[in-house]
Structures are given as structure tokens and as C-alpha cells.
């Protein structure tokens, strides 16, 4: 079995079987990072361009480490060095990259649909590393991997996602993934940060943090960009934290074994108190660790799955 598309543009086009395949494959890759020699020859001779048209540290580092551990040759190409600033179109830049025959283009871009535009004109496999507020599929996959690691399953779990829903690509990919895998999703945030029609994605929507937390197995906190305050989405960080900040006390409404997640980077004292971020329920650093295995699995599967001997 393999993925149906040569590209990973989002979670929305995947089916449950494909999601499970990525997660299962990632299990085998996870142990590579535990070894003394953290490298397998799986993608030897393959070239990956990490094309980051929007700043990113953690996602780019995670992809880069995944590529190196698979023995791929990788090139980082980011806005500061790109010709996009010189007025070249995205398609032309991508075609120039393609002329050097990479096998993968991992793209991070501020505009929704940018990876889809590349997929229409490129022969390489396109991996969406986050397109505006649209999707961030590898984040949702590493989140699911982390949940499965702790809970053993996804189906039947109650997952609360809290914060700036409107501007988050992480939440969209997570909603698609969790719904496809049979989890129940409740989202909460101030009404100004809840996009219209959200319930149409099959989630419960509330403006009460406590209601969202009630009885949940997983709490996912989203990053709140401080500049949103200036645009009138909420009056102050202080009030935001009072209404939506996760504290140990409020976390008690969740199940006793609930885990707390965050895609990072965290704003301590904005989305959550430090005692939660660093507390026993937090799996935030596990998410980062698992990101490498999941991205290795994605690249491996998009390369055709080849043979499992490479993993031995």
C-alpha cells in the first residue's frame, strides 16, 4: 500500500487508510533517531529543496533533520535569498528549482494554495510545510502520532483545540485528520477568532474554555499572535489569558490523564501558564521529537515506499 498522490498538499485529500499508513510507517522511523548512528540510506541520491517563502525555524529544521537521517541531499532556499523579492513569479522560481532536478520540494508559504499551484506545474513531489491559514499536514500527522503514542488510538477520543482558530493552519489540518480518524473535536476561542461556517467542518464550536475542556482526552493549545490585539480581535493579552489561558486549575476539567499539546512556539503566560507547559500532562517536546519521524515517513512514502530493507 502507498499514498495515492505523489504530493502531500494537505490532510483533506487523504483518507483514513493513508493517514494510518503514514503513522504506522513513522513508528518504524522513530527508532532510527534513538540509534547511535542516526542515518539510513533510504533516500540516498534523492534531492530535497526546502523552499521556505515564509520564516520558519522549527518546521524547516525538522524537515532538514528528517532528510539528513534518510541520506537525502537537501538544499535550503528561503525568502532572504530568493528571487521572489525581485519580482519573479512563484511558478517561475519553482521551475528554476525544478530545472536542477530535485525529487521533492518542501514548501512553506504565506499564501493558501501556493503548494497546489506548484503541484500543477512541477514534476517533483510537493510537500506542504504550511500554506498560510490553510493546512500544515505534517504538523497534524505528528500531532496524531503523539496522541497515538500516549493514548494508543485516535478513534473515540475527545480533542479540544483552543485559541486563534481563524488564522491557524494547524487547526484545519488537525480537524480534517481527527474527524477522518473518528475522534470528536471541540474548538474554543473568542468569537472574533472563530471563522464563519466552522461547524460545517464537523466540529463543536464554543466560546467557553471550560466547556471545551470538560472530559477531554487531549488539549491542543494554539499560538496566539500578539499583533492580533492591534487588529481588534481581543482587547488585551491579559484578558485573553483570563478567558482562554490554560492553567493547572482549569485543566482539571479535562480527564485526569489528559495530555496537553502545542505546535510551538509557545507564548508562556498567553496561551498557557508555565506550570502546564512544563507539567506532567505536557507532550510538547515529544511533538517536536515525533516531527522528525513523521516527516521521514512522509518523504519515504512519497518517494514510492521503495523497500523496507532500508529500515533494517
Amino acid at each position, binding site marked *: 500500500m502507498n499514498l495515492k498522490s505523489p504530493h502531500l498538499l494537505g490532510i*483533506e485529500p487523504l483518507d483514513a487508510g493513508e493517514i494510518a499508513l503514514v503513522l504506522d510507517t513513522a513508528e518504524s522511523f522513530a527508532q532510527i533517531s534513538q540509534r547511535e548512528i542516526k542515518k539510513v540510506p533510504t533516500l540516498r541520491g534523492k534531492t530535497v529543496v526546502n523552499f521556505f517563502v515564509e520564516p520558519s525555524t522549527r518546521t524547516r529544521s525538522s524537515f532538514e533533520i528528517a532528510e539528513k537521517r534518510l541520506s537525502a541531499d537537501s538544499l535550503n532556499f528561503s525568502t532572504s535569498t530568493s528571487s521572489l523579492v525581485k519580482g519573479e*513569479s*512563484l*511558478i517561475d522560481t519553482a521551475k528554476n528549482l525544478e530545472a536542477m532536478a530535485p525529487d521533492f520540494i518542501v514548501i512553506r*508559504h504565506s*499564501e*493558501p*494554495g*501556493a503548494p*497546489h*499551484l506548484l503541484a500543477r506545474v512541477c514534476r517533483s513531489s510537493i510537500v506542504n510545510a504550511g*500554506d*498560510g*491559514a*490553510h*493546512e500544515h499536514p505534517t504538523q497534524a500527522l505528528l500531532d496524531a502520532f503523539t496522541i497515538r503514542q500516549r493514548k494508543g488510538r485516535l478513534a473515540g477520543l475527545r480533542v479540544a483545540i483552543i485559541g486563534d482558530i481563524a488564522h491557524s*493552519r494547524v487547526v*484545519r489540518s488537525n480537524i480534517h485528520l481527527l474527524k477522518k480518524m473518528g475522534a470528536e473535536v471541540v474548538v474554543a476561542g473568542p468569537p472574533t477568532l472563530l*471563522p*464563519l*461556517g*466552522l461547524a*460545517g*467542518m464537523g466540529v463543536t464550536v464554543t466560546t467557553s474554555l471550560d466547556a471545551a475542556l470538560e472530559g477531554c482526552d487531549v488539549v491542543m493549545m494554539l499560538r496566539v499572535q500578539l499583533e492580533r490585539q492591534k487588529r481588534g480581535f481581543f482587547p488585551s493579552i491579559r484578558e485573553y489569558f483570563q478567558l482562554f489561558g490554560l492553567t493547572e486549575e482549569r485543566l482539571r476539567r479535562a480527564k485526569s490523564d489528559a495530555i496537553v499539546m502545542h505546535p510551538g512556539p509557545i507564548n508562556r503566560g498567553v496561551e498557557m501558564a508555565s506550570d502546564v507547559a512544563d507539567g506532567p500532562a505536557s507532550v510538547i517536546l515529544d511533538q517536536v521529537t515525533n516531527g522528525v519521524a513523521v516527516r521521514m515517513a512522509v518523504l519515504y512514502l512519497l518517494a514510492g515506499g521503495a523497500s523496507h530493507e532500508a529500515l533494517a
Partner: protein
Amino acid sequence: MKLLLKGGRVVDPATKTDAVLDVLCEDGAIVKVAHDIPPGDAKVLAVKGLVVAPGFVDMHCHLREPGQEWKETIESGARAAAAGGFTAVACMPNTVPVNDERSVTEFIRARAREKACVRVYPIGAISKGLKGEELAEIGDLVAGGAVAVSDDGRPVVSGMLFRKVLEYASMFDIPVIDHCEDLDLSDGGVVNEGIVSTVLGLKGWNHTAEEVMVFRDLTLARETGGRVHIAHASTAGSVALVRDARARGVKATIEVTPHHFALTEEACRDFDTRSKMNPPLRTEADRRALLEGIADGTIDAIATDHAPHHSDEKSVEFSRAPFGIVGLETAVSLALDRLVASGLIGLPRLVELFSAGPSRILGLPGGRLAPGAPADITVLDTARTVVVDASAFRSKARNTPFDGWSLKGGPVATIVGGVLVHDVLTSRA
């Protein structure tokens, strides 16, 4: 020179005609509409089984000349209009330079006389440079041939300026056409705000940003007695507001585009920039409300908002692509298919929406098939299956979401001033 259209079904709501009749044109005018007119020395166009209608008028298009000739020219736009069944078009002033002074209006008219195969009526700017600050010289624009004023594409933000233009333009009895968008509320949105913007993570353009401005315009029209025309209405609320205001005696008219009654926001699902337009495609409920307004008489005109763009300009990230699609060569087929073949309205109403309606709003001489009227005639074949082929467009642009669509009915001949400017009849099997 004489031209006789023989044996067609003449559908002319302006003269309440719907019968099989012959139409005789001579020296650019219609001279006779009657049974069995002997041809004499007239050239005969056999139109048996076809519909003969007064010339269709597109009261809202962008011809891009002067200044953006890589997108379209007056010549290519007029050819597209003729191929689409239009005998006349009114072109918006957002050219480079802006049509905010008489010399530009006169340039457009001179260029049209030289190059265009259909009638071209310039629409002047409301404000100098479309900046929404000072009124353009509207009297001079009208003297130069402008038939209306509009800052189309650049909504008039200032309520006071909009009040002033309604007052001022009333001197010349021309409509003030408004692209209704509260820029603060639409907030840079690129698709309708709703499930599609939410799933795709694209900025939403809320329907209320249109309706707030429609309400403002209607309120000011009521106060001033001015003539406001609502361009490309896209929401259920806009149609309802106009319907209510008119019932209270406000002089308001309203147009809709074929894309807003044929498509919904769902067409943007795959980030296809050919479905990006302003106002954006809305919801199914909005689409149905537009159809209801078409059926119940609220809507006065169907207009294309023909907005040609080069494919390079559209082949970019969705948010960065320019708004707009071409419409001149698909509008009539879309209307015949979605409105008439579907049974929503009859042919007389369709002809009213394309001909008498816009002619009345703009004060044009056409819009009816009666002796003395200009010999501007659109011939339709309601049985013909039209497959949209963007690569064959006469327009310079190809930005249409309808490429490949199969539609029932289409224009087959276009006659301007008694001259056949487009004709697929002779090549018919």
C-alpha cells in the same frame, strides 16, 4: 442597404411582441416588423426557428484601453461582444489614464468608431482619478459621450461624496453606478466569507460589506432623488434591499452577472484563480435569491463585468491574483441555459434583462424592435448546444471558469446598424 430577417420568432418585450414575423432594416434603422415582408432588393437572412431580439447591451464591461492593451483592446473587446450576441457595451472608466475627463471619453469613442464592430458607450468616473475625493467633470464627460458615471472597482468610501454625485448627476439624468463594497468590512477578503474561506484559510469578504453599502446608496438615493444603479449584486440581502427600496419609490436599479447566478463559492475550492472575482462568488442561498430577483422582476439587467486579465497575471497564488473573469462570450449562453432552458423565466424576460433593461437605465436608443429604432439585433438559437472553448475566444483573455461547459442555447448572429457583425448561421449544417 437593406437586410431582411425572415421567418424568425420576434421577441420584443418593449413592444410586447412575441410572434413569427419578418424584420426589415434599411440604412441602419428598422423600417418594418410584419408578416411576410417581400424581400425586394434586401439581403435576406433566413432565421426560421431562431429568436430575433432587439440588440443585447452589456452595461458593465472593462475594455482596458487606453493603458492595458495586453489584457484587451476596444477592438478585441468589441469582437468578443459581437461574438457573444451584444450589439452595444458600456465600458468602465478604470483605464490608464482613468476616464475622468472628456478627452479620454472622446478617445474611447473615436477608437470605437475606428475599430469596434459594436457600439461602445463610455462610462465616466465619479471622482477624479477614482480617488473618491473630488467629483470629476461630469457635465463635460456627458457632453463628450459618457452615459453614466461610476468609480467601479474602487468603491466610493465617502458617504458625502456619494450623496454629492447623486445630486450632481441628476442634472444630466444619468445613473450613478456603484460597486458596493465597504472596504473596511471586506477587509482584503478574496473569497466569500463562509465555509469555503474557512476550509481554505483564505481571507473572507463578508456579504454584509456589500449590503451595508447598498443600504447607504439606497438611503442617499431616496434623500436626493438621484438615480443609483447597483452593479453586480451578489447577495440575497442586496436584492432584498433594492426590492424594498423600490417599493418605497426609490429610483434604484440593479444588475447581476451570469457568474453570480451560475456559480457559488464552491468553485474556489481548488484555489482556481479563474473563479476569483469581486464581489466574490457567494453561497447557494445567495445564488437562489438572485434567481428569484431575476424571476420576480427586481433585477433590471444582466451585465457581464467582463474583466480580461492576462494568464500571467492569473497564474499566481490565489490571494495575489487579480479579481475578475471574462464574460462577453459566455453570458448569453449561460443565461439561456440557466434561466430559460431551466424554465425559470421565458424568453421575453430574458430579452428585457439583456436589452430593454440596460437600454432604459443608460438612456440608449435601442432596446426595441420597432420602426425608427436602430437596426441593432441579436439572433439566438435556443436549441443549439454551445460548448465553451476559451481558446477560441475573440477576447484577448482566457480567464473564465466556464471553459468546457456545455450550455443549451446561444447567440448566432449579431447585427449592428443593419450590418451583420457576427454570424454563425452561414456555417450551420
